[in-house]
């Protein structure tokens, strides 16, 4: 395999945990990923020796902390190949990033009747902010449909985009595993005069990301899915757009001046970072990026293609028609995230039984209820593999599925 998974696993303390003497098979990384030792240590170390306020105080300790924080921003810039570090906005999570775009850009630019195009595989984080805007402003939402194998059906894309002001879509589905043709979608948006807003939450942790190669306008993602800490996310935006937008949250750090009769916002990135930022979390995210860059994102992607292939082969071979894997079968256009149905067993029951063998996966609607309705299910089970998973984990899943049938006597 491309990655040396045994040595990677050894770097994740939680994966060493045994429950009832059995090792943990963590297949829920599309939900949130585990943290390597270097990330935990970076945060601990920072809190023990260097924690201080950011951007506010002038003493050495504070200057060092501010520098470390800004280094984290530069690391993000490099990691996604953004043109300037100042356009990298630290948010609390991807959800805040997408809401920031809807609130700030959306409220400044969208009027009744304006069109925003989404896809039928969007996460709630890229739906609900637009629903709220639709209810408030009367904008129209249009939806790019899906093909039978869970890809975007682009047949009528240009008519859907006709007259649209924004096209907001995921770079990779958290349910189907589908990787979308981001550059093509950005081009189509721009050709129609619309902005391209990319939910890259499931993409950045697993692939080489290049926001300039995408020619995207906004890109949002979360640290906690890419080996980094919870409590921090990123919104990258095209500089001219960010500069033209009104602020979102108001408070300290985001102002140039405040008077009793008004205020003037600060420059980027401060303008969109009101209040005390996630300081220690930025340090942790930096360590996560270093960790991922050491492995090489191209290697991570190759590894996940291998795992995805092995998982499809194994599960289909062992269970045939008893298992229904959603999403594309071509690993070129999918990641290693699999939603599936198994022998009519409700996903919630399935996950409970698998948990008995320490196989951790998610059962539910995965925050994509509109897609669930399309798939005509209430819920699916979802196994999502990451850089610390290997064939043994696939095998463990397959073995555990066996046990599930017994209990329900099916």
């Amino acid at each position, binding site marked *: 395999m491309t990655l040396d998974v045994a040595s990677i696993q050894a770097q994740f303390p939680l994966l060493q945990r045994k*429950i009832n003497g059995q090792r943990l098979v963590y297949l829920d990384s599309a939900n949130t990923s585990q943290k390597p030792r270097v990330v935990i240590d970076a945060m601990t170390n920072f809190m023990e020796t260097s924690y201080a306020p950011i951007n506010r105080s002038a003493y050495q300790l504070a200057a060092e902390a501010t520098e470390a924080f800004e280094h984290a921003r530069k690391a993000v810039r490099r990691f996604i190949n953004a043109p300037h570090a100042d356009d990298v906005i630290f948010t609390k999570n991807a959800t805040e990033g997408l809401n920031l775009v809807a609130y700030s850009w959306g409220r400044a630019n969208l009027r009744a009747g304006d069109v925003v195009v989404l896809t039928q595989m969007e996460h709630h984080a890229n739906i609900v902010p637009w629903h709220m805007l639709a209810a408030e402003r009367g904008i129209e939402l249009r939806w790019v449909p899906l093909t039978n194998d869970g890809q975007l059906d682009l047949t009528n894309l240009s008519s859907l985009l006709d007259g649209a002001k924004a096209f907001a879509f995921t770079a990779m589905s958290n349910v189907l595993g589908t990787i979308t043709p981001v550059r093509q979608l950005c081009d189509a948006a721009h050709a129609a005069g619309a902005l391209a807003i990319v939910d890259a939450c499931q993409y950045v942790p697993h692939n080489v990301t290049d926001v300039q190669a995408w020619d995207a306008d906004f890109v949002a993602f979360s640290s906690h899915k890419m080996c980094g800490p919870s409590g921090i996310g990123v919104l990258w935006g095209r500089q001219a757009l960010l500069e033209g937008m009104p602020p979102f949250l108001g408070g300290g750090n985001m102002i140039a001046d405040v008077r009793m009769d008004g205020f003037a916002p600060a420059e980027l990135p401060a303008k969109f970072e009101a209040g005390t930022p996630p300081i220690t979390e930025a340090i942790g995210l930096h360590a996560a990026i270093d960790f991922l860059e050491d492995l090489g994102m191209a290697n991570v992607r190759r590894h996940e293609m291998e795992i995805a292939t092995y998982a499809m082969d194994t599960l289909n071979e062992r269970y045939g028609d008893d298992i229904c894997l959603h999403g594309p079968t071509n690993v070129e256009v999918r990641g290693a995230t699999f939603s599936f149905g198994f022998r009519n067993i*409700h*996903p*919630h*029951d399935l996950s*409970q039984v698998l948990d*008995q063998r320490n196989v951790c996966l998610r059962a539910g*609607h995965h925050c994509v209820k509109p897609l669930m309705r399309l798939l005509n299910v*209430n*819920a699916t089970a979802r196994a999502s593999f990451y850089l610390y998973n290997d064939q043994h984990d696939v095998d463990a899943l397959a073995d555990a599925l066996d046990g599930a049938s017994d209990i329900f006597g099916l």
Partner: protein
Amino acid sequence: MPGLEDLYREIILDHYRTPRNRGELPPPAAHAVGHNPLCGDEIDVYLQVDGDTITDVKVGGQGCSISQSSASMMSQAVKGRSVTEVRALVRRFKGMMSIEEELPEGERAPEVEVKLGDLEALQGVVKFPVRIKCATLAWNTLIEALAEATSA
């Protein structure tokens, strides 16, 4: 960690495989829908209340073995009971799920004797906190349907 046999008792699986009182009731029967935002399960409860008595109940929707069997047993337990008894039953059931019902200031729960019967089989759920929401979904929906029925 408790074993699965505490959760998936035979009687639960029986109600799951052969749900009782499945179906719908036409208006004027009361109707409420409950969602479990965690897993996407949905339950419909239809309630026919005549005077103080629940004369008929039907359950629709879909969900996991716990939410479905809980709904099925619930439907059996409330049919033919008085509204007061049913409210007491809800409280007892929630108590078993270790959920404290909050009463409006000053009010005390009336002392009504109700037996849980088959429903006792669900007490293993309390050891699996994530599943408590599955078990109580039908009951929360019942309360809503009851509110609709008695307000009309």
